[in-house]
Structures are given as C-alpha cells and as structure tokens.
C-alpha cells in the first residue's frame, strides 16, 4: 500500500530518513553468512528555474533519489543503483530484487585483491533546515528587480540528502535545504558580470542589493572592447578564476591513484620540484557544507593539507587506493578529487590589487579549462565574463576573449607573486544528474608573465 506523497521539504526529508533506515534494516537483515553490504542514498527535491533576458525559460520541480548498494562476498564485489521513492513497499521490493541480482553477478566476477570491507568508523547525523522561497513565489521575487537589464541564469533550491549505512553498523545522515542563484548580467558588448547568491535562507534585501551592485559593475563593460595580442602579461585572477585553476587539480592532480598510475599533473612535485612558497592548499571540512563521510563511510579529518608553502605534503587517498599501494587513507572520495578545497590567503590587500597589477590583465573568471599536456602540468582555457585590460593601476577596457596555455609549474611556481589577503567562497553550482553540495574558499592570484596564445 502506498503512503501519501510528501510535497513539503521538511516532510519529504523526514519521510526519506524514516524509509531509508527501514529499508537499510531490511537489506541488512537479509544478508547471508559471509556477505557484507554498504548502502548509500543520494536525493533531492529541487525547484529549477531557468532564466533568460529577465524572463522564465523553463521552470519545474524534480523529486529524485537513488540508492546504491555494494555487496561483497567471497572476495568479490559488485554494486547496484536503483530508485528510492520514499515509499517503503515500492522501495523494499526493488531493493531485495537488486540484492538478489548482485548475488547472481558476483560469482561471475574475478577475485578482487583490493576489496575494502565495511567498517564501523562511527556514525553521524547532520540536518540543516532552510528558509527558502516557495516554488510559486520565485519568479515574482527574482524578476521585478532585473527588468531593464539582460539577466540570465538558473535558480535552484530545495532539500538535498546524502546518507550511508553498512553491515558493520555504521550510520550517516546529512541533509540540508539550500538555494543557489547563478546568474549573468550581460552588456550590449556581450560581456557579462557573473555572480552567485547561495545559502539556506532567502533574503530579499540581500538579493536586491547584490543585483544593484552587479548592475553598477555592468556599466564598466559598456566601454569599447580592447583586443589584446597573444603574449605574456602580468595577470590578476579573481577568486572565481582561481577556483577554476585549482579545480583542475581534482582532475588527475591530487589523487594518489592517479599519482601511482602515471596520470597526475603534480607528479613532478614527487620528483623534487616545488611550487611557489606563497601557495598552501588544503581540504577544509570545517566549513560544514559537504558531508565528511565518503562512499565507504570513512570520515575525513577536518583538514587535509595538500600543498604547504609550495611543497606537496599529502595526496588524497581513499581506502581502496590505500590498500593497493600500502599507504594511509585520508578518507578521500572514490574519485580522489577535492570536496572542500581552500587556498590560504596571502598579503595582497584588495585595495592594492590594481596598483600591484600595474599594467596587465584582470580576469574575473575563466572558462573551459583542460590539460594541454597533463603530465607536463600545462593547462589551456579561455577568459570569460568581466575581464579587463589595466594600465598603471586603472581599468581601461574590457578585453576580447583570450586563450591561455601555460604550465602550473610556472604560474603556481616562480611566476606566482602574491595572493590576496582575503578569500571568497565560490559555491559549487553543478547540477549534473543532481545538485552538488559545497564549494571552495579561494583568494585572488597575482601572476607575472602568464602566457596567452590566441
């Protein structure tokens, strides 16, 4: 018999927690001798509103959650992912069916020497409620303020949940109610002011003030665009641009598995090279925006230093990698990418950025980064949004887009002159498959002779 359909976020989260725990109990009770199981839940009830030219392009709600179970038996393992609806009778039938299917798959697999059995690393429960706009109020709250400007972007809000149980007795529950407004104000020149507003409580006054600030910034973009020839320039990367550059290290940089298997862009740091002594990078979970537990239920230390004063002091290691290479796990994700990165600030005051830059490029954001030579640490990408040519400490004009191609061993090495003495929180606004959590804490970077190519 179906239970009633919860539409209120608080009711949804309560129903999901209750059903998840009952479902997990059922699965664990059905385990046979010699079987081990881990159970993960990810879910959201999201309102998505897509905006273009100060109007609504698409708007709707998505209620979606799924379970991933991993069965281990006889030194073999396999997983199954399937929908979680919050209705115990529906979910139980499907979960037991999937468990049975895994029992048929596992004997067909080769032995896995690097299996990590579930352990009880300790349990946790975090739940953060929010004060969010009702779905039918969003357009009226957002759009009157942006009439007369070319406003485009996405508003996403609602509860998100991550949970984990296993056959060793561990229980983790993380739930939060958040919103993200990720928008661009676009000038007639097609350059844009890009900004985000994110949190757990919608504040109409803060929104209006931020939009007014963005509109003021937009006026600078009305100046004629300056074409910059390829070459090497002093360059300031605002925190959002720093986040793009540092984010590349999650793509085959700081992973121990990648380091061991010939795929890391930071391999030269193990061979004796170092980066700038100004640069310190760490995983910092004290921000509390993402769960500290990974898919195995391991709980990461509150801080994991990765680069300290330009030296590689740690990589990210999950338990499977730790077992394979006989190193110590620091509870990294399966991907061994950063979940809550922070670059420590330097000594460049915000007021001094343009003066210290002198003549060069002020880049508010970057776009479409990729390795042009991963093991050589070389990155290519594009400037994007509000990027300016600066002469003698004064903004002269927005620039036509430029492509760069340079090695991180250079621009995070000897060419890195300083970092700002303040950081900005750059929220993760990704919605691939599901809304992401968290973000990064980044300062701005002042780099000498950064290489632009096209």
């Amino acid at each position, binding site marked *: 018999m179906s239970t009633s359909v919860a539409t209120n976020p608080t009711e949804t989260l309560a129903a999901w927690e209750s059903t998840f725990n009952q479902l997990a109990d059922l699965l664990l009770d059905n385990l046979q001798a010699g079987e081990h199981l881990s159970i993960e839940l990810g879910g959201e009830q999201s309102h998505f509103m897509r905006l273009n030219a100060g109007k609504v392009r698409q708007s709707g709600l998505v209620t979606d959650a799924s379970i991933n179970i991993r069965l281990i038996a006889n030194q073999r393992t396999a997983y199954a992912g399937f*929908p979680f609806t919050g209705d115990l009778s529906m979910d139980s039938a499907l979960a037991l069916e999937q468990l049975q299917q895994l029992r048929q798959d596992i004997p067909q697999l080769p032995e896995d020497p690097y299996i990590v059995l579930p352990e009880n690393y300790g349990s946790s429960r975090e739940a953060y409620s929010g004060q969010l706009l009702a779905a039918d109020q969003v357009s009226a709250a957002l759009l009157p303020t942006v009439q007369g400007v070319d406003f485009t972007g996405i508003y996403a809000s609602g509860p998100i949940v991550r949970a984990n149980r296993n056959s060793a007795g561990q229980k983790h529950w993380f739930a939060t109610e958040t919103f993200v407004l990720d928008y661009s104000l676009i000038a007639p020149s097609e350059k844009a002011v890009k900004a985000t507003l994110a949190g757990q409580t919608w504040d109409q006054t803060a929104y209006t003030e931020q939009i007014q600030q963005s509109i003021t910034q937009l006026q600078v973009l009305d100046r004629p665009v300056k074409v910059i020839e390829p070459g090497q320039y002093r360059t300031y990367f605002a925190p959002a641009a720093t986040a793009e550059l540092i984010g590349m290290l999650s793509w085959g940089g700081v992973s121990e598995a990648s380091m061991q298997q010939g795929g890391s862009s930071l391999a030269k740091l193990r061979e004796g090279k170092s980066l700038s002594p100004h640069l310190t990078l760490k995983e910092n979970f004290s921000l509390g925006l993402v769960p500290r537990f990974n898919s195995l239920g391991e709980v990461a230390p509150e801080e994991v230093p990765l680069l300290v004063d330009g030296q590689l002091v740690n990589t990210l290691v999950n338990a499977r990698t730790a077992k394979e290479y006989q190193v110590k796990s620091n509870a990294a994700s399966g991907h061994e990418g950063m979940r809550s990165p922070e670059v420590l600030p330097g000594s460049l005051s915000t007021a001094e950025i343009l003066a210290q830059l002198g003549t060069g490029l002020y880049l508010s954001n970057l776009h*479409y980064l990729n390795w042009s030579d991963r093991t050589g640490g070389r990155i290519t990408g594009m400037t994007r949004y509000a990027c300016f040519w600066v002469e003698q400490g004064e903004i002269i004009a927005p620039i036509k887009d430029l492509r760069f191609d340079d090695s991180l061993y250079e621009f995070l090495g000897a060419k890195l002159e300083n970092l700002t003495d303040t950081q900005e929180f750059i929220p993760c606004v990704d919605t691939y498959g599901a809304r992401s959590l968290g973000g990064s804490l980044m300062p701005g970077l002042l780099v000498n002779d950064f290489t632009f190519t096209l």
Partner: protein
Amino acid sequence: MKFDLHQALNTLDINADWVGLRQVNEKTTTHAVRDGRPQSNGRDFTQGVMVEVLAQGQFGYAATNRLDPASLQVAAEQAYQQAIATSKWAVHSFTPAVRPKAVGQYQSPFQQPLDLISVADQLDLLVKVCDTLQVSDQIVKTSAFTQTLETEQIFVSSNGTDTHQTFGFVITNYEATAQDGSVIQKRTDNGPLARCYQAGSEVFDPDQVLTRAHQVGEQAIALLAAEDCPTATTTLVLAPDQMMLQIHESVGHPLELDRILGDERNYAGSSFVKLSDFGHLVYGSPLMNITFDPTVPGEFAGYAFDDAGMPAQREYLIKEGLLLRGLGSLESQARAQVPGVANFRARSWNRAPIDRMANLNLEPGQSSFDDMIGNIESGVYMEANRSWSIDDYRNKFQFGCEYARLIENGKLTKVLRNPNYRGITNQFWGNLAQVGDSSTFAMYGTPYCGKGEPNQCIRVGHASPTCAFKEIEVFGGAA
C-alpha cells in the same frame, strides 16, 4: 503491479491546454578492469516520469521517480502551478503546436541481443584486453571498460501522442599508459569512450577487440620514443576520431538555436552565429557538407521522434560551405523564426528537453586516404582526441590528440607525441582543403555532451571522413 502510463494520463485531473507524460526506464551495466583486475562492476536502474503541462502559453514541469497515480497527480499539479506562476514572465507564449501529435515506434538496430553476453564472458574479455594491451614492460597501466544500456522511452500526451522507443547502447574503452622515465603517454581505442554505438553484443567480438587492443598497446610504446609535435603552421590532417570532436565543438554547439537565443549564456555560452546568418553565412569551404541525421543505423544518437514528438529526419545544416539551418527544436523555431530540426531532447525523465545535436555528420568527399596524404608536401596527421577547449562563442579553440605522424613529401613518416592544434572556427573550416571518400569514413560518439541549466549529459554521435586543413597552427607539449 506494472505501471501503465496511458492509464495514468487518462486519470489525471488537470485543467491545462496540453499535458504530456514522458516515462524513461533505463538499465545500465558497467564493467571496468585495470591491469587485469576488477575495478568497478555493477548495474544501475533508473525510472521516472516527466510531467509537462502547458497553461497560459507557458510550460511547467514536474518529474518524479515514484510511479503511482497519486504521485503523478501531485506532479501534474506542481507543473500546472509552475506554468501559471511563471506565465507572466514567459520568454515566449507557446501553443500546443510545439508538441505535435506523434504515433510510432523505434528500436535500435542490433545483430545479437545485449543479454547474449554474460557478466562472466564480459569480464573474461576485459581481462584478455588488458593482457593484450600489455605489449611491453613499459606499459605501466592497462584499462578496459564496457557499458551497456537498455533504454525504454514512452511518451503520451493529451493531444494523442503515443510513441514507444527502445534503445540499446554499447560503450567501450580500452587504454594503455606507457612510461619511460619521466615520459608518460596514454593511447586509447580511438579516444576515451569514443566508441559509442546503438548496437548489440556483436560489439564484443573478441577477434576485433583484441586486434585493436594490440594496436593501442603498440602505439602507446611508439609514443614513448617519438619526437614532440613540432611548432608550425602547416597542413593538418585529422582522422575521423578527432573530426568527431572538431564537428561537435565548432559546428554542433554554435548552431544550437537555444544558445543563439541566449538560454545558455550563463553556462556553456552563446555563439558567434547570429539568427540572421542562416541562409547567408559561408561557414567553411565548398567541401564542407554537414548533416543532422538521427536515422543513421547504429550511430549513437539515433531515434524516430524527439522529446516534443517531432519526427526525426536527415537535414543539411551546411551545404557546400553555406549555413542553411540551425539545431533548433519546434520551441526554438517558434522563438527564432528560422528553420531547425527534430532535436528537442532530455537526458532522462528528470530533465526538461532542450536543443541537442544528436547525430551530426560530415558527408564524405572524393579523396582516398593515400591520395590525400600524397597531395601534402609537409604536414601533420593526428588521431584521437585527448584535450578540448573552446570559448563561449565557439570560436577560438585548442584541441589535443593522442597520436600523430609527420607528413613529408606525400608520405606518413615519424610518430609524434603531444600533438595539439588551435584555430578560429570560421577560418579553420574555410581552410578545409580535402575531404576523404567513404573508405575513410568512420562513426564515433560520446555519452558526455554537457549542456543546460540544470545540466544534462547527453549522447551524441558523429561520423566523418578523414579531412585535411591548410595553414593550421600545430604544436607539442611542455618541455
């Protein structure tokens, strides 16, 4: 009890101008082996329904994975409320004409059913692939990956649409990493995950798979001793497995009408193409012929109807270098008033459809591969994408490949490593100098074309012959 979408539509109580229900059920199996040892093996199942409602000229949507009448009724009411609440702010006032009645079926082509190959057989093959890739002790990592997907999509609507499409997808990837001191090179089977098809288990023919795996291993080793790609402005010849990326980034994305209309400007960007360019813009040389074609058998993004119910058919987007039409759905065509195609597609039940490129192909020309190379005094031939980056107007790009050969006096000579090239879209296609004939034609794809807010990773297919471009900037890796 089995969920009946038709019955669910009939029992909905909603006062709207149009209602559509799109159900997607998808089963995925994934197997990955590294160095002959299991890495990740499992299956995923997703199902859900997207409810779309048109009221006061605006669509609202609500999607749920809970398939019962009460949940669908709640979703329909939520969708209706969204339509009403946002209609005052609508980008465009739509009519049901952008959701035409469609009735029909589609089934992916295959020679052998996907379930003909067991889990044990797949793993056995993947272990053999790793063994075959290991052509030398200098191969420090081998990987083999397969994914099969069985997708069922049912679309019913209040104006009589009733379509049922079933798809079988196969994705494979085999790769070898070679190392000699500080030199590390990776070679894959036509680029990471490039081998994507609508097919059955015939894709796992061991003889063909292992022959290709041996070549991947041999070429990884060859790259260790190769010279870096020189820095030069020269003739660039691209194999179909790199043409795939070139077409995708510098033709597909800039021709998407929703980008041109501004929907993507906050995320993936806009386009250098303007609405006024259709019918007028010379996009490339007269050798350039690009078609949108979801009807090619076996190509990754084939279908009979898009997610608006528009019948899919082959259309020329660019003919003899001239831009004719955009990649725009009925919604985009209503907004832009330029011709488009049947390309309104959603990643799954939990996303609303947007303009996507589906199969986008460069039609074959007249040159055999030997004639093409024979006509080039000096140049570089590149295969298999490994790096991609292009600006938000889809103009300035830089792409890298896995493997290259020098062309000297009409012949392929030395192997080159770390090959990259860069250019500007319109100039680049204007320099298209030779297009290979059908003997050089090959079909690839990717499961991960990202676009949209909220994001959607979608499947696209690309087919192309080998092509030659004159006066292109090429260069190597970091010293």
